[in-house]
Protein backbone atom coordinates (compact mmCIF):
# COMPACT_ATOMS: atom_id res chain seq x y z
CA UNK A 1 0.00 0.00 0.00
CA UNK A 2 1.07 3.59 -0.49
CA UNK A 3 2.28 5.33 2.64
CA UNK A 4 -0.38 7.66 4.01
CA UNK A 5 0.58 11.28 3.81
CA UNK A 6 -2.19 12.95 5.81
CA UNK A 7 -1.86 13.74 9.52
CA UNK A 8 -2.15 10.66 11.71
CA UNK A 9 -5.44 9.82 13.38
CA UNK A 10 -3.65 8.75 16.53
CA UNK A 11 -0.23 9.81 17.68
CA UNK A 12 1.41 8.65 20.89
CA UNK A 13 4.36 10.78 21.83
CA UNK A 14 6.82 9.51 24.46
CA UNK A 15 4.02 7.93 26.48
CA UNK A 16 5.05 6.71 29.91
CA UNK A 17 2.73 4.79 32.25
CA UNK A 18 4.04 3.86 35.69
CA UNK A 19 3.10 1.65 38.63
CA UNK A 20 4.35 2.14 42.21
CA UNK A 21 6.55 -0.70 43.41
CA UNK A 22 5.67 -0.25 47.07
CA UNK A 23 9.12 0.90 48.13
CA UNK A 24 8.68 4.45 46.92
CA UNK A 25 10.02 3.71 43.47
CA UNK A 26 7.94 3.50 40.33
CA UNK A 27 8.31 1.09 37.43
CA UNK A 28 7.33 2.01 33.89
CA UNK A 29 4.96 -0.53 32.31
CA UNK A 30 4.94 1.69 29.22
CA UNK A 31 8.13 3.62 28.65
CA UNK A 32 8.85 6.23 26.00
CA UNK A 33 6.32 4.80 23.55
CA UNK A 34 5.83 6.84 20.39
CA UNK A 35 3.72 5.60 17.52
CA UNK A 36 1.20 6.75 14.93
CA UNK A 37 -1.82 5.27 13.23
CA UNK A 38 -3.18 6.83 10.05
CA UNK A 39 -6.74 6.57 8.77
CA UNK A 40 -7.47 3.16 7.31
CA UNK A 41 -4.21 1.80 8.63
CA UNK A 42 -3.61 -1.24 10.84
CA UNK A 43 -0.76 -1.14 13.30
CA UNK A 44 0.20 -4.46 14.87
CA UNK A 45 1.52 -4.09 18.41
CA UNK A 46 3.38 -7.28 19.23
CA UNK A 47 4.77 -8.47 22.52
CA UNK A 48 4.77 -11.17 25.15
CA UNK A 49 3.01 -10.98 28.51
CA UNK A 50 4.36 -8.08 30.52
CA UNK A 51 5.67 -6.28 27.45
CA UNK A 52 3.28 -3.37 28.05
CA UNK A 53 1.19 -3.80 24.91
CA UNK A 54 -2.16 -4.05 26.69
CA UNK A 55 -1.17 -1.27 29.11
CA UNK A 56 -0.43 0.92 26.10
CA UNK A 57 -3.98 0.27 24.85
CA UNK A 58 -5.50 0.99 28.27
CA UNK A 59 -3.46 4.19 28.47
CA UNK A 60 -4.90 5.38 25.15
CA UNK A 61 -8.46 5.13 26.49
CA UNK A 62 -7.29 6.26 29.94
CA UNK A 63 -8.36 3.10 31.71
CA UNK A 64 -5.03 2.36 33.39
CA UNK A 65 -5.96 0.41 36.54
CA UNK A 66 -5.08 2.10 39.84
CA UNK A 67 -2.51 2.56 41.29
CA UNK A 68 -0.99 2.89 37.84
CA UNK A 69 -0.95 6.28 36.16
CA UNK A 70 0.12 7.98 32.98
CA UNK A 71 3.23 9.88 34.04
CA UNK A 72 4.08 11.76 30.88
CA UNK A 73 3.70 12.00 27.14
CA UNK A 74 0.89 12.88 24.77
CA UNK A 75 -1.94 10.93 23.19
CA UNK A 76 -3.27 12.93 20.27
CA UNK A 77 -6.45 11.80 18.57
CA UNK A 78 -7.04 13.98 15.51
CA UNK A 79 -4.62 16.49 16.95
CA UNK A 80 -6.31 16.74 20.37
CA UNK A 81 -4.46 15.48 23.43
CA UNK A 82 -6.69 12.94 25.22
CA UNK A 83 -4.71 13.55 28.42
CA UNK A 84 -6.20 17.07 28.58
CA UNK A 85 -9.80 15.81 28.63
CA UNK A 86 -11.89 15.68 31.81
CA UNK A 87 -13.73 12.48 32.82
CA UNK A 88 -16.77 13.43 30.77
CA UNK A 89 -14.67 14.26 27.74
CA UNK A 90 -12.83 10.95 27.78
CA UNK A 91 -16.11 9.03 28.22
CA UNK A 92 -17.33 10.65 25.03
CA UNK A 93 -14.22 9.39 23.24
CA UNK A 94 -14.49 5.82 24.50
CA UNK A 95 -16.80 3.82 22.34
CA UNK A 96 -17.72 6.81 20.17
CA UNK A 97 -14.32 7.62 18.66
CA UNK A 98 -12.41 4.54 19.81
CA UNK A 99 -14.04 1.11 19.96
CA UNK A 100 -12.49 -1.90 21.66
CA UNK A 101 -12.51 -5.64 21.21
CA UNK A 102 -11.08 -7.75 24.01
CA UNK A 103 -9.69 -11.26 24.14
CA UNK A 104 -12.45 -12.73 26.29
CA UNK A 105 -15.79 -11.70 24.80
CA UNK A 106 -17.58 -13.70 27.51
CA UNK A 107 -16.24 -11.34 30.16
CA UNK A 108 -17.06 -8.20 28.19
CA UNK A 109 -20.71 -8.97 27.45
CA UNK A 110 -23.50 -8.48 29.96
CA UNK A 111 -24.92 -11.95 30.68
CA UNK A 112 -28.42 -10.76 31.59
CA UNK A 113 -29.12 -8.59 28.54
CA UNK A 114 -29.90 -9.87 25.06
CA UNK A 115 -27.18 -9.07 22.61
CA UNK A 116 -29.55 -6.93 20.57
CA UNK A 117 -30.36 -4.73 23.55
CA UNK A 118 -26.69 -4.41 24.51
CA UNK A 119 -25.85 -3.09 21.06
CA UNK A 120 -28.96 -0.87 20.99
CA UNK A 121 -28.03 0.51 24.41
CA UNK A 122 -24.59 1.46 23.16
CA UNK A 123 -26.12 3.16 20.12
CA UNK A 124 -28.55 5.07 22.36
CA UNK A 125 -25.84 5.98 24.87
CA UNK A 126 -24.03 7.85 22.11
CA UNK A 127 -27.27 9.53 20.96
CA UNK A 128 -27.09 7.92 17.52
CA UNK A 129 -30.56 6.39 17.59
CA UNK A 130 -33.18 5.27 20.10
CA UNK A 131 -35.93 2.70 20.52
CA UNK A 132 -36.96 0.76 17.45
CA UNK A 133 -34.41 2.55 15.26
CA UNK A 134 -31.56 1.55 17.60
CA UNK A 135 -32.79 -2.05 17.70
CA UNK A 136 -33.01 -2.16 13.90
CA UNK A 137 -29.48 -0.78 13.70
CA UNK A 138 -28.31 -3.49 16.12
CA UNK A 139 -29.64 -6.17 13.78
CA UNK A 140 -27.88 -4.47 10.86
CA UNK A 141 -24.62 -4.52 12.79
CA UNK A 142 -25.04 -8.20 13.62
CA UNK A 143 -25.54 -8.79 9.93
CA UNK A 144 -22.43 -6.75 9.11
CA UNK A 145 -20.34 -8.99 11.40
CA UNK A 146 -21.88 -12.03 9.67
CA UNK A 147 -23.89 -13.40 12.55
CA UNK A 148 -26.27 -15.84 10.86
CA UNK A 149 -29.99 -15.12 11.30
CA UNK A 150 -29.27 -11.76 12.99
CA UNK A 151 -32.88 -10.84 13.88
CA UNK A 152 -33.29 -14.05 15.89
CA UNK A 153 -29.80 -13.88 17.41
CA UNK A 154 -30.43 -10.30 18.58
CA UNK A 155 -33.02 -11.72 21.01
CA UNK A 156 -30.57 -14.24 22.47
CA UNK A 157 -28.32 -13.97 25.52
CA UNK A 158 -24.50 -14.24 25.41
CA UNK A 159 -24.47 -17.76 26.92
CA UNK A 160 -26.46 -19.03 23.93
CA UNK A 161 -23.63 -18.13 21.53
CA UNK A 162 -20.43 -19.96 20.66
CA UNK A 163 -17.05 -18.31 21.31
CA UNK A 164 -16.74 -17.23 17.69
CA UNK A 165 -20.23 -15.70 17.64
CA UNK A 166 -19.58 -13.88 20.92
CA UNK A 167 -16.46 -12.35 19.42
CA UNK A 168 -18.51 -11.23 16.40
CA UNK A 169 -21.02 -9.62 18.78
CA UNK A 170 -18.11 -7.93 20.57
CA UNK A 171 -16.95 -6.53 17.23
CA UNK A 172 -20.51 -5.35 16.45
CA UNK A 173 -20.54 -3.57 19.82
CA UNK A 174 -17.18 -1.96 19.09
CA UNK A 175 -18.54 -0.69 15.78
CA UNK A 176 -21.93 0.40 17.18
CA UNK A 177 -20.98 4.06 17.58
CA UNK A 178 -19.07 4.18 14.29
CA UNK A 179 -15.65 4.84 15.81
CA UNK A 180 -12.64 5.97 13.78
CA UNK A 181 -10.26 3.69 15.61
CA UNK A 182 -10.76 0.17 16.89
CA UNK A 183 -8.36 -1.25 19.46
CA UNK A 184 -8.44 -5.05 19.32
CA UNK A 185 -6.52 -6.72 22.15
CA UNK A 186 -5.79 -10.38 21.29
CA UNK A 187 -9.15 -10.58 19.49
CA UNK A 188 -8.67 -14.14 18.24
CA UNK A 189 -6.40 -15.69 20.87
CA UNK A 190 -9.20 -17.57 22.64
CA UNK A 191 -10.64 -18.90 19.39
CA UNK A 192 -10.04 -22.12 17.48
CA UNK A 193 -7.95 -21.96 14.32
CA UNK A 194 -10.80 -22.06 11.81
CA UNK A 195 -12.85 -19.53 13.80
CA UNK A 196 -9.78 -17.32 14.18
CA UNK A 197 -9.31 -17.29 10.42
CA UNK A 198 -12.98 -16.33 9.94
CA UNK A 199 -12.81 -13.50 12.49
CA UNK A 200 -9.62 -12.15 10.87
CA UNK A 201 -11.32 -12.24 7.46
CA UNK A 202 -14.23 -10.36 8.99
CA UNK A 203 -11.99 -7.70 10.55
CA UNK A 204 -10.23 -7.24 7.23
CA UNK A 205 -13.53 -6.74 5.38
CA UNK A 206 -14.97 -4.39 8.02
CA UNK A 207 -11.78 -2.35 7.97
CA UNK A 208 -12.18 -1.78 4.25
CA UNK A 209 -15.94 -1.21 4.44
CA UNK A 210 -15.85 1.31 7.31
CA UNK A 211 -12.40 2.72 6.51
CA UNK A 212 -11.36 1.82 10.04
CA UNK A 213 -8.02 2.34 11.67
CA UNK A 214 -7.01 -0.64 13.73
CA UNK A 215 -4.61 -1.04 16.62
CA UNK A 216 -4.17 -4.79 16.73
CA UNK A 217 -2.51 -6.08 19.88
CA UNK A 218 -1.26 -9.63 19.74
CA UNK A 219 1.49 -12.05 20.67
CA UNK A 220 0.88 -13.99 17.45
CA UNK A 221 3.09 -13.03 14.54
CA UNK A 222 0.84 -15.05 12.22
CA UNK A 223 -2.04 -12.66 13.03
CA UNK A 224 0.26 -9.71 12.40
CA UNK A 225 1.36 -11.07 9.03
CA UNK A 226 -2.28 -11.53 8.05
CA UNK A 227 -3.54 -8.13 9.17
CA UNK A 228 -1.02 -5.38 9.81
CA UNK A 229 0.40 -2.64 7.58
CA UNK A 230 3.05 -1.71 10.12
CA UNK A 231 4.34 -3.49 13.20
CA UNK A 232 5.72 -2.27 16.51
CA UNK A 233 7.45 -4.87 18.67
CA UNK A 234 7.37 -4.22 22.42
CA UNK A 235 9.66 -5.63 25.05
CA UNK A 236 9.64 -4.67 28.73
CA UNK A 237 7.56 -1.54 28.16
CA UNK A 238 9.47 -0.15 25.20
CA UNK A 239 9.05 -0.40 21.45
CA UNK A 240 12.24 -2.13 20.36
CA UNK A 241 11.50 -2.28 16.64
CA UNK A 242 9.03 -0.58 14.34
CA UNK A 243 8.73 -1.32 10.63
CA UNK A 244 6.39 -1.91 7.70
CA UNK A 245 5.11 -5.48 7.98
CA UNK A 246 6.92 -6.83 4.88
CA UNK A 247 10.16 -5.34 6.09
CA UNK A 248 9.81 -6.71 9.62
CA UNK A 249 9.30 -10.26 8.40
CA UNK A 250 11.90 -10.06 5.63
CA UNK A 251 14.63 -8.21 7.49
CA UNK A 252 14.02 -8.13 11.25
CA UNK A 253 16.82 -6.08 12.78
CA UNK A 254 16.46 -6.26 16.57
CA UNK A 255 17.84 -9.44 18.15
CA UNK A 256 14.56 -9.87 20.07
CA UNK A 257 12.44 -9.65 16.90
CA UNK A 258 14.82 -12.03 15.15
CA UNK A 259 14.53 -14.44 18.07
CA UNK A 260 10.72 -14.20 18.19
CA UNK A 261 10.45 -14.95 14.48
CA UNK A 262 13.00 -17.76 14.67
CA UNK A 263 11.25 -19.61 17.48
CA UNK A 264 8.00 -20.02 15.53
CA UNK A 265 7.81 -23.74 14.73
CA UNK A 266 7.96 -25.01 11.18
CA UNK A 267 10.87 -23.00 9.87
CA UNK A 268 13.75 -25.41 10.20
CA UNK A 269 14.20 -29.15 10.12
CA UNK A 270 12.86 -30.58 13.35
CA UNK A 271 12.21 -31.46 15.85
CA UNK A 272 14.18 -28.97 18.00
CA UNK A 273 13.15 -25.31 17.90
CA UNK A 274 15.25 -22.19 17.96
CA UNK A 275 14.75 -20.67 21.41
CA UNK A 276 15.47 -17.41 23.19
CA UNK A 277 17.11 -18.25 26.51
CA UNK A 278 15.94 -16.70 29.78
CA UNK A 279 12.64 -15.10 30.75
CA UNK A 280 10.77 -11.87 30.16
CA UNK A 281 11.79 -9.50 32.98
CA UNK A 282 9.16 -8.71 35.58
CA UNK A 283 8.01 -5.12 36.08
CA UNK A 284 10.49 -3.36 38.31
CA UNK A 285 13.27 -5.87 37.72
CA UNK A 286 14.93 -4.14 34.85
CA UNK A 287 18.68 -3.86 34.57
CA UNK A 288 20.36 -0.55 33.96
CA UNK A 289 20.99 -1.16 30.28
CA UNK A 290 18.94 -2.64 27.46
CA UNK A 291 16.13 -4.75 28.94
CA UNK A 292 16.80 -7.53 26.43
CA UNK A 293 20.56 -7.63 27.05
CA UNK A 294 20.45 -10.49 29.62
CA UNK A 295 18.87 -12.74 26.95
CA UNK A 296 20.73 -11.40 23.95
CA UNK A 297 23.50 -13.41 22.30
CA UNK A 298 24.81 -10.32 20.54
CA UNK A 299 25.22 -8.06 23.54
CA UNK A 300 28.40 -6.07 23.72
CA UNK A 301 29.99 -3.52 25.92
CA UNK A 302 27.45 -0.63 25.86
CA UNK A 303 24.35 -2.85 26.27
CA UNK A 304 24.54 -3.25 30.04
CA UNK A 305 25.08 0.42 30.78
CA UNK A 306 22.32 2.54 29.25
CA UNK A 307 19.19 1.56 27.34
CA UNK A 308 19.69 2.39 23.65
CA UNK A 309 17.59 5.14 22.10
CA UNK A 310 15.39 4.45 19.10
CA UNK A 311 17.32 4.96 15.86
CA UNK A 312 16.34 4.81 12.22
CA UNK A 313 17.91 2.06 10.14
CA UNK A 314 16.11 3.12 7.00
CA UNK A 315 13.01 5.20 6.31
CA UNK A 316 10.11 3.85 8.35
CA UNK A 317 12.25 1.22 10.08
CA UNK A 318 13.48 1.99 13.57
CA UNK A 319 14.97 0.00 16.38
CA UNK A 320 16.26 0.42 19.87
CA UNK A 321 19.56 -1.44 19.76
CA UNK A 322 23.23 -0.53 19.70
CA UNK A 323 23.60 -2.80 16.69
CA UNK A 324 21.78 -0.14 14.67
CA UNK A 325 25.10 1.62 14.26
CA UNK A 326 25.94 4.63 16.37
CA UNK A 327 25.43 4.57 20.09
CA UNK A 328 23.76 7.93 19.70
CA UNK A 329 20.71 7.94 17.47
CA UNK A 330 21.19 11.45 16.18
CA UNK A 331 24.70 10.73 14.92
CA UNK A 332 23.20 9.60 11.65
CA UNK A 333 21.09 11.81 9.39
CA UNK A 334 17.49 10.72 9.68
CA UNK A 335 16.43 8.54 6.79
CA UNK A 336 20.05 7.56 6.12
CA UNK A 337 20.84 4.07 4.92
CA UNK A 338 22.22 1.50 7.31
Amino acid at each position, binding site marked *: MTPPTDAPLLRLDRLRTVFPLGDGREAAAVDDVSLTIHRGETLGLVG*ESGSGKSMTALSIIRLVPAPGRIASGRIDLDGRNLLDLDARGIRAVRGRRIGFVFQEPAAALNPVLTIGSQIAETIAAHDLARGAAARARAVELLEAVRVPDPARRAREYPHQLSGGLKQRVMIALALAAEPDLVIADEPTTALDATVQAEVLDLLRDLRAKFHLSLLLITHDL*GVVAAMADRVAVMYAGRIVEHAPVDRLFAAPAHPYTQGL*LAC*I*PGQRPGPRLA*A*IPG*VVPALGHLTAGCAFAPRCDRRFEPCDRTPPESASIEPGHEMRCYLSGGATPLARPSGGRA
Partner: protein
Amino acid sequence: MTPLLDVRHLVKDFPAGTGLFGRGGSVRAVDDVSFAIDAGETFGLVGESGSGKTTTGRCVLRLVEPTSGDIRFKEMDIRALSARDLRHARRHLQIVFQDPYSALNPRMRVGDIVEEPLIIHRMGSREERRSRVAELFTLVGLDPADARRLPREFSGGQRQRIGVARAIALNPSFVVCDEPVSALDVSVQAQVVNLLLDLQQRLGLTYLFIAHDLRLVRQVCTRVAVMYRGRLVEIAPTERLFTEPAHPYTKALLSAMPTLLPGQKLERIPYDASSFQALPLKGVASGHFAAV
Protein backbone atom coordinates in the same frame (compact mmCIF):
# COMPACT_ATOMS: atom_id res chain seq x y z
CA MET B 1 6.06 -55.09 17.00
CA THR B 2 3.35 -54.59 19.59
CA PRO B 3 2.62 -50.94 20.18
CA LEU B 4 3.40 -49.41 23.58
CA LEU B 5 -0.14 -48.11 23.88
CA ASP B 6 -3.10 -49.59 22.06
CA VAL B 7 -6.46 -47.86 22.37
CA ARG B 8 -9.51 -49.50 20.80
CA HIS B 9 -13.09 -48.29 20.52
CA LEU B 10 -12.70 -45.80 23.34
CA VAL B 11 -15.97 -44.13 24.33
CA LYS B 12 -16.61 -41.51 26.99
CA ASP B 13 -20.06 -40.23 27.81
CA PHE B 14 -20.57 -37.34 30.18
CA PRO B 15 -23.92 -36.80 31.83
CA ALA B 16 -25.67 -33.83 30.27
CA GLY B 17 -28.25 -31.45 31.62
CA THR B 18 -27.74 -32.47 35.22
CA GLY B 19 -28.75 -30.18 38.05
CA LEU B 20 -32.10 -28.92 39.15
CA PHE B 21 -33.79 -29.06 35.77
CA GLY B 22 -31.66 -31.91 34.43
CA ARG B 23 -33.11 -34.03 31.73
CA GLY B 24 -30.68 -36.88 32.25
CA GLY B 25 -29.16 -38.07 29.02
CA SER B 26 -25.53 -37.77 28.10
CA VAL B 27 -23.04 -36.20 25.75
CA ARG B 28 -20.58 -38.42 23.92
CA ALA B 29 -17.23 -36.61 24.27
CA VAL B 30 -15.16 -39.44 22.81
CA ASP B 31 -16.82 -41.65 20.24
CA ASP B 32 -15.26 -44.97 19.19
CA VAL B 33 -11.65 -43.77 19.09
CA SER B 34 -8.90 -46.24 18.20
CA PHE B 35 -5.17 -45.62 17.80
CA ALA B 36 -1.86 -47.23 18.67
CA ILE B 37 1.38 -45.55 19.68
CA ASP B 38 4.78 -47.19 19.26
CA ALA B 39 7.61 -46.78 21.76
CA GLY B 40 9.65 -43.64 21.08
CA GLU B 41 6.94 -41.89 19.09
CA THR B 42 5.59 -38.40 19.57
CA PHE B 43 1.99 -38.98 18.60
CA GLY B 44 0.12 -35.75 17.96
CA LEU B 45 -3.58 -35.36 18.73
CA VAL B 46 -5.08 -32.20 17.26
CA GLY B 47 -8.55 -30.74 17.11
CA GLU B 48 -10.53 -27.72 18.18
CA SER B 49 -11.75 -27.06 21.71
CA GLY B 50 -14.50 -29.53 22.52
CA SER B 51 -13.28 -32.09 19.98
CA GLY B 52 -12.51 -34.58 22.74
CA LYS B 53 -8.71 -34.58 22.54
CA THR B 54 -8.12 -33.72 26.21
CA THR B 55 -10.75 -36.23 27.36
CA THR B 56 -9.09 -38.91 25.21
CA GLY B 57 -5.72 -38.17 26.85
CA ARG B 58 -7.22 -38.41 30.31
CA CYS B 59 -9.14 -41.60 29.56
CA VAL B 60 -5.88 -43.27 28.54
CA LEU B 61 -4.54 -42.64 32.07
CA ARG B 62 -7.96 -43.26 33.61
CA LEU B 63 -7.88 -39.79 35.14
CA VAL B 64 -11.31 -39.81 33.54
CA GLU B 65 -13.05 -43.19 33.66
CA PRO B 66 -13.85 -44.39 30.11
CA THR B 67 -17.41 -45.53 29.38
CA SER B 68 -16.24 -48.40 27.21
CA GLY B 69 -13.37 -49.56 25.04
CA ASP B 70 -10.00 -51.18 25.46
CA ILE B 71 -6.74 -49.59 26.63
CA ARG B 72 -3.62 -51.72 26.60
CA PHE B 73 -0.27 -50.46 27.79
CA LYS B 74 2.47 -53.00 27.15
CA GLU B 75 0.91 -56.18 28.59
CA MET B 76 -1.44 -54.33 30.91
CA ASP B 77 -5.18 -54.04 30.44
CA ILE B 78 -5.53 -50.55 31.89
CA ARG B 79 -9.32 -50.68 32.19
CA ALA B 80 -9.24 -53.93 34.16
CA LEU B 81 -6.86 -52.61 36.82
CA SER B 82 -8.07 -52.25 40.41
CA ALA B 83 -7.60 -48.86 42.01
CA ARG B 84 -4.47 -50.16 43.72
CA ASP B 85 -2.97 -51.66 40.56
CA LEU B 86 -3.83 -48.51 38.66
CA ARG B 87 -1.79 -46.47 41.15
CA HIS B 88 1.09 -48.83 40.45
CA ALA B 89 0.64 -48.52 36.72
CA ARG B 90 0.74 -44.73 36.93
CA ARG B 91 4.45 -45.01 37.56
CA HIS B 92 4.72 -45.70 33.87
CA LEU B 93 2.04 -43.34 32.55
CA GLN B 94 2.24 -39.68 33.44
CA ILE B 95 0.82 -36.33 32.33
CA VAL B 96 2.01 -32.76 31.88
CA PHE B 97 -0.90 -30.33 32.15
CA GLN B 98 -1.58 -27.25 30.08
CA ASP B 99 -1.73 -24.62 32.76
CA PRO B 100 1.38 -24.48 34.93
CA TYR B 101 -0.35 -21.88 37.10
CA SER B 102 -3.18 -24.10 38.31
CA ALA B 103 -1.43 -27.48 38.13
CA LEU B 104 0.89 -26.82 41.06
CA ASN B 105 -0.34 -26.60 44.66
CA PRO B 106 0.42 -22.97 45.59
CA ARG B 107 1.10 -23.84 49.25
CA MET B 108 3.66 -26.54 48.60
CA ARG B 109 7.35 -25.92 48.08
CA VAL B 110 8.24 -26.91 44.55
CA GLY B 111 10.74 -29.51 45.79
CA ASP B 112 7.91 -31.20 47.74
CA ILE B 113 5.70 -31.10 44.65
CA VAL B 114 8.33 -33.00 42.68
CA GLU B 115 8.99 -35.36 45.59
CA GLU B 116 5.33 -36.20 46.20
CA PRO B 117 5.04 -38.98 43.58
CA LEU B 118 8.18 -40.58 45.05
CA ILE B 119 6.55 -40.60 48.50
CA ILE B 120 3.27 -41.97 47.19
CA HIS B 121 5.12 -44.79 45.47
CA ARG B 122 7.35 -45.35 48.52
CA MET B 123 10.52 -44.83 46.56
CA GLY B 124 13.77 -44.67 48.51
CA SER B 125 14.67 -43.10 51.83
CA ARG B 126 14.15 -39.45 52.57
CA GLU B 127 17.78 -38.80 51.68
CA GLU B 128 17.54 -40.70 48.41
CA ARG B 129 14.34 -38.88 47.48
CA ARG B 130 15.94 -35.52 48.17
CA SER B 131 18.87 -36.31 45.94
CA ARG B 132 16.50 -37.59 43.24
CA VAL B 133 14.61 -34.27 43.41
CA ALA B 134 17.89 -32.37 43.01
CA GLU B 135 18.75 -34.57 40.02
CA LEU B 136 15.31 -33.94 38.49
CA PHE B 137 15.67 -30.19 38.97
CA THR B 138 18.98 -30.27 37.14
CA LEU B 139 17.51 -32.45 34.41
CA VAL B 140 14.75 -29.93 33.63
CA GLY B 141 17.09 -26.96 33.79
CA LEU B 142 16.22 -25.61 37.23
CA ASP B 143 18.57 -24.83 40.10
CA PRO B 144 18.19 -27.49 42.84
CA ALA B 145 18.73 -24.69 45.36
CA ASP B 146 15.29 -23.34 44.32
CA ALA B 147 13.50 -26.46 45.58
CA ARG B 148 12.52 -24.64 48.78
CA ARG B 149 10.64 -21.92 46.95
CA LEU B 150 6.89 -21.68 46.34
CA PRO B 151 5.32 -21.94 42.85
CA ARG B 152 4.41 -18.25 42.76
CA GLU B 153 8.11 -17.35 42.81
CA PHE B 154 8.55 -18.92 39.37
CA SER B 155 7.70 -17.76 35.88
CA GLY B 156 5.27 -19.72 33.71
CA GLY B 157 8.06 -21.48 31.83
CA GLN B 158 9.82 -22.46 35.06
CA ARG B 159 6.54 -23.74 36.51
CA GLN B 160 6.07 -25.91 33.46
CA ARG B 161 9.59 -27.28 34.04
CA ILE B 162 8.49 -28.15 37.58
CA GLY B 163 5.42 -29.90 36.13
CA VAL B 164 7.69 -31.84 33.79
CA ALA B 165 10.05 -32.78 36.65
CA ARG B 166 7.08 -34.15 38.61
CA ALA B 167 5.85 -36.10 35.58
CA ILE B 168 9.21 -37.81 35.01
CA ALA B 169 10.04 -38.36 38.71
CA LEU B 170 9.03 -42.03 38.62
CA ASN B 171 10.84 -42.79 35.36
CA PRO B 172 7.69 -43.27 33.28
CA SER B 173 7.88 -44.59 29.72
CA PHE B 174 4.77 -42.76 28.49
CA VAL B 175 3.73 -39.15 29.06
CA VAL B 176 0.56 -37.40 27.94
CA CYS B 177 1.53 -33.79 27.15
CA ASP B 178 -1.78 -31.91 27.19
CA GLU B 179 -1.14 -28.55 25.49
CA PRO B 180 2.14 -28.32 27.40
CA VAL B 181 3.20 -24.92 26.07
CA SER B 182 0.03 -23.14 24.99
CA ALA B 183 -0.18 -21.10 28.20
CA LEU B 184 3.42 -19.91 27.85
CA ASP B 185 4.96 -16.89 26.20
CA VAL B 186 6.13 -17.42 22.65
CA SER B 187 9.81 -17.04 23.49
CA VAL B 188 9.49 -19.53 26.35
CA GLN B 189 7.44 -22.13 24.45
CA ALA B 190 10.45 -23.18 22.38
CA GLN B 191 12.54 -23.75 25.53
CA VAL B 192 9.95 -26.09 27.05
CA VAL B 193 9.41 -27.94 23.75
CA ASN B 194 13.17 -28.47 23.46
CA LEU B 195 13.26 -29.71 27.04
CA LEU B 196 10.55 -32.28 26.27
CA LEU B 197 12.47 -33.39 23.18
CA ASP B 198 15.76 -33.68 25.09
CA LEU B 199 14.11 -35.71 27.84
CA GLN B 200 12.55 -37.98 25.25
CA GLN B 201 16.02 -38.71 23.86
CA ARG B 202 17.70 -39.19 27.21
CA LEU B 203 14.97 -41.15 28.97
CA GLY B 204 13.43 -42.99 26.02
CA LEU B 205 9.98 -41.42 26.52
CA THR B 206 6.94 -41.87 24.33
CA TYR B 207 4.57 -38.91 24.08
CA LEU B 208 0.91 -38.43 23.36
CA PHE B 209 1.18 -34.77 22.39
CA ILE B 210 -2.15 -32.95 22.52
CA ALA B 211 -2.06 -29.53 20.90
CA HIS B 212 -3.95 -27.08 18.79
CA ASP B 213 -0.84 -25.35 17.37
CA LEU B 214 -0.51 -27.06 14.01
CA ARG B 215 2.92 -25.62 13.30
CA LEU B 216 4.25 -27.05 16.53
CA VAL B 217 2.64 -30.42 15.89
CA ARG B 218 4.18 -30.54 12.44
CA GLN B 219 7.59 -29.75 13.89
CA VAL B 220 7.69 -32.25 16.76
CA CYS B 221 5.30 -35.14 16.04
CA THR B 222 6.04 -38.37 14.20
CA ARG B 223 2.37 -39.10 13.46
CA VAL B 224 -0.75 -37.02 13.88
CA ALA B 225 -4.38 -37.87 14.57
CA VAL B 226 -7.15 -35.34 13.97
CA MET B 227 -10.27 -35.28 16.17
CA TYR B 228 -13.59 -33.69 15.36
CA ARG B 229 -16.73 -33.93 17.50
CA GLY B 230 -15.34 -36.80 19.52
CA ARG B 231 -14.34 -38.86 16.47
CA LEU B 232 -10.95 -39.54 14.98
CA VAL B 233 -11.29 -38.39 11.39
CA GLU B 234 -7.74 -38.94 10.20
CA ILE B 235 -4.40 -40.48 11.22
CA ALA B 236 -1.23 -40.19 9.17
CA PRO B 237 2.53 -39.75 9.37
CA THR B 238 3.06 -36.03 10.04
CA GLU B 239 4.34 -34.84 6.68
CA ARG B 240 1.79 -36.95 4.87
CA LEU B 241 -1.04 -35.39 6.89
CA PHE B 242 0.13 -31.86 6.22
CA THR B 243 0.75 -32.37 2.51
CA GLU B 244 -1.97 -34.86 1.56
CA PRO B 245 -4.87 -34.43 3.99
CA ALA B 246 -7.76 -36.70 3.04
CA HIS B 247 -10.65 -35.72 5.32
CA PRO B 248 -12.53 -32.52 4.42
CA TYR B 249 -12.31 -31.32 8.03
CA THR B 250 -8.52 -31.80 8.10
CA LYS B 251 -8.28 -29.85 4.85
CA ALA B 252 -10.30 -27.00 6.36
CA LEU B 253 -8.23 -27.02 9.56
CA LEU B 254 -4.92 -26.92 7.71
CA SER B 255 -6.13 -24.17 5.39
CA ALA B 256 -6.85 -21.97 8.43
CA MET B 257 -3.20 -22.04 9.53
CA PRO B 258 -1.88 -18.49 9.45
CA THR B 259 1.05 -17.94 7.12
CA LEU B 260 4.09 -15.91 8.06
CA LEU B 261 4.15 -14.17 4.70
CA PRO B 262 2.63 -10.70 5.14
CA GLY B 263 -0.14 -9.84 2.75
CA GLN B 264 -0.44 -13.35 1.45
CA LYS B 265 -4.04 -14.42 1.74
CA LEU B 266 -4.32 -18.17 1.57
CA GLU B 267 -7.35 -19.73 -0.02
CA ARG B 268 -9.27 -21.11 2.90
CA ILE B 269 -11.21 -24.32 2.46
CA PRO B 270 -14.54 -24.10 4.29
CA TYR B 271 -15.95 -27.10 6.11
CA ASP B 272 -19.66 -27.68 6.17
CA ALA B 273 -20.27 -29.05 9.67
CA SER B 274 -23.70 -30.32 8.63
CA SER B 275 -22.03 -32.70 6.16
CA PHE B 276 -20.19 -34.46 9.00
CA GLN B 277 -20.84 -38.19 9.26
CA ALA B 278 -19.50 -40.59 11.86
CA LEU B 279 -17.64 -42.92 9.49
CA PRO B 280 -15.05 -45.56 10.37
CA LEU B 281 -11.41 -44.92 9.48
CA LYS B 282 -10.22 -46.62 6.32
CA GLY B 283 -6.78 -46.85 4.78
CA VAL B 284 -6.08 -44.30 2.05
CA ALA B 285 -2.32 -44.92 1.82
CA SER B 286 0.36 -46.73 3.79
CA GLY B 287 -0.09 -45.70 7.44
CA HIS B 288 -2.68 -43.10 6.42
CA PHE B 289 -6.28 -43.57 7.54
CA ALA B 290 -9.24 -41.26 7.12
CA ALA B 291 -12.94 -41.36 7.92
CA VAL B 292 -14.03 -40.76 4.35
